[in-house]
């Protein structure tokens, strides 16, 4: 009961502090502190509820337990991180986004491909990963290569569709201007369409950044070496080591958010001119 009251108390306190902070002028510090307080509040509520309702650690461990496990297992977590994130997700991300970008430029260049490939592409994009993963594991073996392949498949189409849409996003007048200069294909591409497409391209890169991590982890459920975040999660669930499961999830969330954040930072630097970046 005490713990439940504690949970509600923290909730109220966190909300109050954040409202005050948000009302103050926005600075770099409040931009970081506010979500942090929000998160800490959530975690405190979690701790309070788990203790207050005496939820079995086999179902949902308390954050303190997860933290203890995290500290005790850094070597395992690091090994899994390298296997899943560095080898699987990152290589797949680079390969998938890179090839989607190039294909998008081809699709955009040749109308025939645009009309033919895009509808088919949309169809292929709808193939659920859960179904693709076992097949790709079968084709590319159980090590990280098949994980990268899953990531490639997952990120390819969001990136393709966004880039193609972005390349078509310049306004009529901007394009007319290029026409009056009799600018050739490449000049128009480099000086107008790519810059104009950047907001969309970054949209694609951001979506892909969360997909990449999920893809690499999910693929490990369908066969893997005995390391990797997906492997650890499924194995530990089977062993009821839920604290380790959540430690891995924490790693996934932190890495995923950081990945997303980095892409968003680069976006801010590249598309500083876009209205959505200017006033918020």
């Amino acid at each position: 009961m005490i713990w439940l009251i504690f949970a509600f108390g923290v909730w109220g306190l966190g909300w109050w502090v954040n409202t005050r902070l948000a009302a103050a002028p926005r600075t770099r510090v409040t931009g970081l502190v506010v979500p942090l307080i929000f998160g800490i509040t959530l975690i405190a509520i979690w701790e309070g509820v788990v203790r207050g309702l005496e939820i079995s650690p086999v179902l949902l461990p308390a954050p303190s337990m997860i933290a203890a496990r995290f500290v005790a297992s850094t070597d395992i977590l690091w090994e899994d991180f390298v296997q899943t994130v560095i080898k699987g997700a990152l290589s797949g991300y680079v390969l998938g986004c890179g090839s989607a970008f190039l294909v998008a430029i081809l699709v955009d260049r040749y109308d025939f491909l645009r009309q033919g490939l895009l509808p088919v592409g949309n169809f292929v994009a709808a193939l659920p990963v859960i179904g693709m993963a076992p097949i790709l594991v079968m084709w590319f073996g159980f090590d990280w290569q098949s994980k990268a392949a899953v990531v490639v498949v997952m990120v390819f189409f969001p990136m393709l569709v966004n880039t193609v849409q972005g390349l078509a996003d310049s306004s009529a007048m901007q394009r007319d201007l290029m026409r009056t200069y009799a600018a050739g294909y490449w000049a128009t591409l480099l000086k107008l369409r790519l810059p104009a497409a950047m907001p969309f391209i970054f949209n694609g890169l951001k979506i892909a950044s969360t997909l990449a991590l999920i893809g690499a982890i999910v693929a490990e459920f369908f066969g893997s070496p005995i390391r990797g975040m997906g492997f650890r999660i499924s194995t530990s669930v089977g062993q009821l080591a839920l604290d380790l499961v959540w430690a891995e999830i924490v790693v996934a969330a932190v890495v995923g958010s950081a990945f997303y954040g980095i892409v968003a930072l680069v976006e801010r630097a590249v598309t500083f001119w876009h209205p959505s970046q200017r006033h918020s």
Partner: protein
Amino acid sequence: MIVEQLKDATEFHRVEPVISAKNLDLTFQTNDGPVHALKDVSLQIGKGEFVSFIGPSGCGKTTFLRCMADLEHPTSGEITVNGVSPEEARKARSYGYVFQAAGLYPWRTIGGNIRLPLEIMGYSKHDQAERVARVLELVELAGFEKKYPWQLSGGMQQRASIARALAFDADILLMDEPFGALDEIVRDHLNEQLLSLWARTEKTIAFVTHSIPEAVYLSTKIVVMSPRPGRITDVIESPLPKERPLDIRDTPEFLEVAHRVREGLRAGHLDD
């Protein structure tokens, strides 16, 4: 009378028609029926002429300019630029175009925007810098080279877009209300600059404006249009000399031409 005028105009520059339109027609299809934007428009513009287009808003001035620039395709009729189709002329980079709205690229600074056509047309780095500096000076924007478009006032953006069209050497200048958002003083200044540039370089200029004095002051020929459907109602050859100090605007000849333009405009409005 109109017919005579047209014949006049047609004959006057038989030698070297830079732009020649014959019986142009253009209709836009919209959700509630077609809009007849240009009807039976014929006009010849000779080399080195300065032609102003004036007419009520919505009469098709922009549309006509866009036809010359190969940005719009007439529904029927014929138009040639430098003796070839607008498309070929465009590909030969025969003209600079100033749009009615500034249309600067938001990701480039003012300097970068002016440099854009120069980069595309392959001017040397050194040449680029030199030209950018020169035209920024011309439109009184020196010092704003590093600013982004949204940091400029409306008039400043418009001047930047004029500078962009002047930065490279095109024989033909197509300008759609370039001085609309400018105050009288800057406008006078730019009018003078434009005239001297024109005299110096012998460019052919097609110029849309709403100001009667401006049209009379600048032009060798004034084309009056009227709306729905857009057509040419009067073509006035200016009797003014090529040399035009600002105070020419107080001479009787000037006032007389201005009067005629005003009458033509008014007639167009009455049609309505």
